């Protein structure tokens, strides 16, 4: 997938990625490029149609200067607002938004639920590491109850969001959750999101070895043991996080619907202008 990365820039190398050793962000970029590579091959999507937009935080850094694609590294929590604008300019864009649990669940919460409600054509990859990595391990709206972080030294007393339920209720037609330890499922979901017209939320549990103070390998093993596929979730599933596809509907995408308004001015026989 190095062909999709700018190894060298005019002023020198752009790699290695800025992420800490074993960070999930690099893996999600890897999986995304695998999905995009397949779409270019199988669906003959032109490269110029892809647009990668990210907010601020470790996940935000994915678009900062590595990609051989159009991209935007925007403001903390506002990537979806920028994506909405891009779709108004060109509804054909295939947009992937890289965001984090703080970027989307905290400062970007309002833009997140409105994007889902409007059903704009965007594939949201929300890397959920349950904390703020870039600024040093503060708690996030997804931090589990009781967790100790640099801003909850005496244990976190706030319940965590379930971003997938939030997206579903807000109206997103495609909602799925995987982890960085499920590469093939993540790649398939990203392809599905990009093929489907409308808002696709793919929450990806992603490890932060530095602030969780555990090795990447241990954390990835944890993702396998502490999750259970929603379809298999019959026996005791207490304490396990559900993964899988939570909803997969067909809903008219915002631009599809708005296009009718635009097109009505082309139909001559209707008496719109009186």
């Amino acid at each position, binding site marked *: 997938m190095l062909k999709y990365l700018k190894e060298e820039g005019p002023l020198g190398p752009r790699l290695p990625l800025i992420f800490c050793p074993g960070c999930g962000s690099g893996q999600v970029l890897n999986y995304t490029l695998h999905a995009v590579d397949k779409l270019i091959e199988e669906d003959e999507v032109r490269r110029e149609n892809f647009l990668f937009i990210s907010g*601020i935080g470790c996940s935000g850094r994915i678009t900062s200067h590595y990609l051989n694609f159009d991209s935007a*590294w925007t*403001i*903390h*929590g506002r990537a979806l607002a920028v994506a909405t604008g891009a779709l108004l300019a060109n509804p054909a864009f295939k947009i992937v938004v890289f965001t984090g649990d*703080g970027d989307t669940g*905290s*400062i970007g*919460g309002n833009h997140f639920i409105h994007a889902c409600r409007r059903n704009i054509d965007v594939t949201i990859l929300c890397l959920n590491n349950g904390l*703020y990595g*870039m*600024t*040093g391990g*503060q*708690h996030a*709206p997804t931090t589990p109850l009781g967790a100790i972080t*640099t*801003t*909850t*030294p*005496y244990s976190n007393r706030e319940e965590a969001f379930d971003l997938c339920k939030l997206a579903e209720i807000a109206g997103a037609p495609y909602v799925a959750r995987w982890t960085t330890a499920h590469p093939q499922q993540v790649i398939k979901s990203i392809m599905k999101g990009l093929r489907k017209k409308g808002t696709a939320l793919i929450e990806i549990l992603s490890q932060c070895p530095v602030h969780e103070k555990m090795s990447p390998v241990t954390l990835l093993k944890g993702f396998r043991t502490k999750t259970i596929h929603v379809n298999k979730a019959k026996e005791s599933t207490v304490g396990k996080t559900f993964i899988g596809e939570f909803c997969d509907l067909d809903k008219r995408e915002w631009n599809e619907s708005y296009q009718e308004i635009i097109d009505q001015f082309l139909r001559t026989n209707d008496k719109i202008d009186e």
Partner: protein
Amino acid sequence: MAKKIGAHDGENRTHDSYFLKPGRYYLQGNQACIEGALMAGCRVYAGYPITPAVETMEYASQRFPQVGGRFIQMEDEIASACALIGSSWGGVKALTATSGPGFSLMQETISIAVMSETPMVIIDIQRAGPGQGYITASQQDVMQARWGHHGGGPIIALAPSSVQEMFDLTIEAFNLSEQWRTPVLVMVEETVGHMREPLVIPPRDAIEVIERKKPQDLGIPPQDYLPWGHGVVAPMANWGDGYNVNFVALVHLEDGNIARYSPQANYHCVERLQNKIEGNVDEISRIETKFLEGCKHLIICYGAVSRTAMEAVIEAHEGNGLELGYIRLVTLWPFPEEKMRKIVGNVDTIFVPEMNLGMMRHPITEALRDRCKKVVSIPSFGILHSPEYILSRIQEETS
């Protein structure tokens, strides 16, 4: 670690036992301002993580509950500033700290706080901008501090230049905000925010702490109470005091009535706010001066740059005896124009070193244009000036 610093020493655990004992400590600027806030009676911190201000939050999350206060990490900076309005009107002194991008998000709320005369303190640990910029130091928000909030209402802004001043000026910020019923901004550079230096903590009872005047203390019963009346600085009834306070930020008359709008009411309302702060600039503002008497040239600076300026001034005097005067603005806003004009004689050149492209040089030039041949700005980008850089610019301009 803070837990060790704040730990009480043996006697029964009361919230007061967690205050730092008088003595010499070694804290980071971002931590010293939190100790200052607690000493000033602040008991609510609402903030959002942003480099380079995040240490204030982490330290606040450890220290506030120890002394019976509350810390919360809000969903963003707008929410944090709004929480300060709620806490302040709820009767508790409130604090947040942020950096450039967050400071921009808070401007609407600061404007509401100016109009509603809400005491609160916002610390801006400035980083290089504009935009995402970088996480190193700058002084690029000092004009936004004055003109960033819509409507042009006045504001108080202080500029600490050491860890000790991060402690002292945060206390002063709370006192000014309570005394003049206004938001007070503490404009810091990342340099001072992240710097560690010895900090002397005085005995608590030796620290002057000002509380807002309350109608109850002045014998004004609810039925006679004018939320924005009774004097230049109106006594402030809080929610829960039984005064049925209707907080508004619309143009209002002293009784808070927003129904009888008129241009005169608007003018009166804004003019009163302006006079409250700008009209008392000499009492509110503070500057520090050295080597002024008979100086040929003059450096005017503020914040972290004053550390470099003082090093350069000493070297200048030690070396070739260049007569270089030194003024440090401890208060940026309200700008102490009259005070400056009283103490500055006629000089050849005024140098204004700033970690931006030249911002405070404008009010300085306006105030002292007729006292010098020229005002020379010495800019820097995302890094503290070195003494060599300032001295070389001075040699160029004056040789």
